[in-house]
């Protein structure tokens, strides 16, 4: 009997696989595309080689003074020499371990929150949020239980940036949730108050808020009751940020189907239990990416405290560039600041995207 054997498959034409095909498909698929590719290559050639030669090849990496910067490129000696100031500001150098410890505790304490298998995560998270701020205040500010006081005027650098961002979001979250609930309330007076509050803070730039909290707050408060500069800035930041958080949370509340509200009511839950046990857990889960985005905006906005004379990372660098011993280091200083801010913001935005995919429960309408 005759059997039929198939011939082996022929390989695909070499024009449709491999590097050549990829180039043809993605870069040179027509005259216009080819022109675009050439233009883009020209742009890359214009920007990348000088940048690399400035930042790496022709840069000075070791030394102690400006005189050690002899080559054409960047002078990273400046950053290296002032690194302590950029990170800690005027925090006494023998006490800087306290800042380090605070950061390490935050990282160690937050790790369990990112482990999916961790049991009783919510309870642990709330406990952490209550205990950690007290611990951080004790470590950073001191003044009791055997730690020396470090006034907030000595805080600075990246430490101060992180403090403002962290306190800002921690204070703005609860306030923002209350405002969002108020805005969705059926009581007209509450709704009007909340809408006014939210729209007011969203309508003005943060700078004017900071101006206000630094010059007007002392006038508003009774004689003798006065805060230091940092606390005044923090109050401004929290009020400002809570309005943005409120709008994000409102988005989450609106995305919860009406059936959830009705089901909770039918179970006989009152307003606070319905919100606390049924609606908010779902709504907050939906808006976590939005809250992370708000936090990124807040993190970038902390740099504005420069205007009221606090020495955050950006202001520390700005001050260092005006030092007569290091004149002409503006580019290096700002590039370094940009890099630090970029790492934080980019990391957070990637995390927010990851969360968005992970938490997508198909609830949104």
């Amino acid at each position: 009997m005759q059997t039929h054997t198939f011939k082996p498959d022929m390989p695909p034409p070499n024009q449709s696989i491999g590097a050549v095909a990829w180039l043809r498909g993605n870069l040179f698929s027509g005259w216009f595309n080819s022109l675009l590719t050439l233009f883009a290559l020209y742009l890359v050639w214009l920007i990348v080689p000088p940048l690399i030669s400035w930042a790496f090849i022709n840069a000075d990496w070791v030394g102690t003074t400006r005189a050690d910067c002899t080559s054409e490129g960047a002078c990273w000696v400046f950053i290296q020499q002032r690194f302590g100031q950029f990170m800690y500001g005027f925090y006494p150098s023998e006490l800087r371990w306290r800042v380090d410890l605070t950061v390490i505790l935050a990282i160690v304490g937050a790790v369990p929150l990112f482990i999916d298998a961790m049991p009783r995560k919510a309870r642990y998270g709330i406990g952490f949020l209550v205990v950690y701020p007290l611990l951080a205040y004790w470590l950073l500010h001191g003044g009791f239980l055997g730690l020396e006081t470090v006034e907030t005027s000595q805080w600075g650098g990246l430490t101060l940036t992180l403090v403002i961002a962290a306190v800002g979001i921690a204070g703005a979250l609860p306030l923002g949730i209350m405002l969002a609930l108020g805005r969705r309330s059926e009581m007209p007076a509450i709704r009007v108050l909340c809408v006014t509050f939210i729209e007011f803070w969203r309508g003005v730039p943060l700078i004017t808020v900071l101006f206000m909290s630094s010059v007007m707050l002392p006038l508003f408060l009774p004689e003798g009751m006065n805060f230091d500069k940092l606390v005044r800035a923090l109050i401004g930041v929290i009020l400002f940020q809570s309005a943005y958080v409120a709008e994000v949370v409102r988005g989450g509340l609106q995305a919860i189907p009406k059936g959830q509200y009705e089901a909770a009511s039918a179970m006989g839950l009152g307003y606070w239990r319905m919100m606390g046990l049924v609606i908010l857990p779902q709504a907050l889960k939906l808006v976590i990416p939005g809250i992370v985005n708000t936090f990124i905006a807040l993190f970038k906005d902390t740099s504005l405290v420069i205007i009221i004379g606090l020495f955050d990372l950006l202001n520390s660098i700005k001050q260092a560039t005006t030092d007569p011993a290091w004149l002409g280091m503006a580019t290096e200083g700002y590039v370094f600041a940009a890099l630090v801010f970029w790492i934080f913001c980019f990391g957070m935005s990637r995390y927010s995207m990851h969360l968005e995919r992970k938490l997508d429960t198909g609830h949104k309408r």
Partner: protein
Amino acid sequence: MQNAANVPRRRGSVLTDPKLRALIFQLVAIAAVVGLGWFLFDNTQTNLEQRGINSGFAFLNNTAGFGIAQHLIDYTQTDSYGRVFFVGLLNTLLVSVIGIILATMIGFLLGVARLSPNWLVRQLATVYIETFRNIPPLLQILFWYFAVMLSLPGPRQSLGVLDSFYLNSRGLYMPSPGLSETFGLFFAALLLAIIASVLLGRWAKKRREATGQPFPLLISVIALLLVVPGLAVLIAGNPLVWTIPELKGFNFRGGWVLIPELMALTLALSIYTAAFIAEIVRAGIQSVNHGQTEAAHSLGLPAGKTLRLVIIPQALRVIIPPLTSQYLNLAKNSSLAAGIGYPDMVSLFAGTVLNQTGQAIEVIAITMSVYLAISISISMFMNWYNGRIALIER
């Protein structure tokens, strides 16, 4: 909340009546807010008296006594604080308008580039967006000002283009137009061309709706607008006289100058905002279902018309609301001018004037209400626009 109307009221304590409880709760809230307001007001009164600070808006008529680097309206040191306010307001609006135009152009370009079939172009756009939107705008402003603008060469070594544009550490100098005698004729010709275009547009629309015949409107309008004023120029001569900046002594004289603060601010703000606009544009274009393109093609529309009549109108519906909020952000971010000393409203008014007069409450209130007015009017416009273009579903 429970729907109290349909539930028969339970006999029992009045305290469990949801309506009554809501009323009491609201009254307590209002009382708390009013009480807090009174507390703050009372404190402020005593504090102001104790420190001997004047109140009221009379200070607006006092002489300012300081110079301003850039003013769009006439201003001298002897003018009042009220005039300083308007100088600052105009400077803020100038930055916002230039910034919005630049940011829109860069942003749309990048947004389209993000969707390009060209891999390299797509990657470049992504790198741009991820770089610039993750760096604080104030940092970008400081970078452009201190690291770029101030390290440009001095006036004598300016970078010149065509012997009429000069860039140096004091700013960008360029020729300024002045009106010549023939400008009236030119202006009349321009006006005539515009009126003719509008009439032509109406006629073309009417004819298309009546007969279905299209009319090459865009080309005819461009031709009208070029030819008629062009004829006027040919007949009567140049309507504008250009003043070209010249190096005299230590600096340039004549022409227009963009001060470095303005350039740093507009560059930084438009580069920063463009990154956000690009993402909005990309999302908007992607939100239009591919079926729309296919449907348009099967109706026989060519690619250009598909884009213009089908894709863009639907994408704009998604793009415009977030775009407006980016414009608003840009206008608010222009207050970062205080960081480099550009004389905008915040740095002039909430900075210098506040320091000189000490009238914190009035000055901050005026500044904040200007921003509030801008943002409220824009959001009202947006609500109106949203209502107009919203999809009316079955």
